[in-house]
């Protein structure tokens, strides 16, 4: 999940590494650290200031109840069967998960941008690089959830503001 979010935010996914090490594999641990350090070295220093917006969005998305619920369920649906002894089909699960992550990330990005003050759809699209269409659909979802609302008119364009904390 974190990897997908990082992709969306445009941050190299290899920056986050997971490894399995047992208490007896001292040598293996040192090999992994050397390998991870080398990879991170090649990726060069990571300047958070460039990704302030995206990272804010990642954090906000990770806080949403929907993604946390899904990550909790993911473990359970993979392993256990449901009442009818059926196991969820992994690809379907993958699909649902990616879709949820993408939508939550976009919504979070919008709320991040609106954090600094009301913006119009086109402004948001330019700032975030998201297609205008995506911005407006996500915006409707936010309005439905009561997290954003129409704020005012500036000339002919409508501005929206965030209601989220």
């Amino acid at each position, binding site marked *: *999940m*974190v990897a997908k*979010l990082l992709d969306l935010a445009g*941050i190299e996914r*290899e*920056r*986050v*590494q*997971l*490894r*399995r*090490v*047992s*208490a*007896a*594999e*001292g*040598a*293996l*641990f*040192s*090999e*992994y*650290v*050397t390998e*991870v*350090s*080398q*990879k*991170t*070295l090649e*990726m*060069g*220093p*990571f*300047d*958070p200031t460039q*990704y302030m917006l995206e*990272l*804010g969005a*990642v*954090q906000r998305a*990770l*806080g949403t109840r929907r993604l946390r619920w899904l*990550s909790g369920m993911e473990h359970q649906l993979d392993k256990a069967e449901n009442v009818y002894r059926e196991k969820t089909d992994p690809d379907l699960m993958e699909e649902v998960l990616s879709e949820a992550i993408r939508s939550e990330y976009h919504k979070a990005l919008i709320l991040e941008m609106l954090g600094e003050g009301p913006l119009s759809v086109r402004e948001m699209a330019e700032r975030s690089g998201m297609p205008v269409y995506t911005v407006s659909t996500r915006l409707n979802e936010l309005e439905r959830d009561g997290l954003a609302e129409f704020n005012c008119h500036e000339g002919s364009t409508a501005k929206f503001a965030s209601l989220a904390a």
Partner: protein
Amino acid sequence: MAENYEPKILAFLCNWCAYAGADLAGVSRFQYPPTLRVIRTMCSGRVDPLYIAEGLVNGYDGVFVSG
């Protein structure tokens, strides 16, 4: 990249497995680059994705979770 640039990696090590493995690497003097900043957790399961994001926000060059 400047040569003296030293990446800083935030590491979450599980107390029973990876942390003990790191200790054993120490006891046997296996050398590895000094890039890690280790936080000990009772289990790798404890590492909330929020902490990983927190790490990146704070400017770490990488996050390493080992269970």
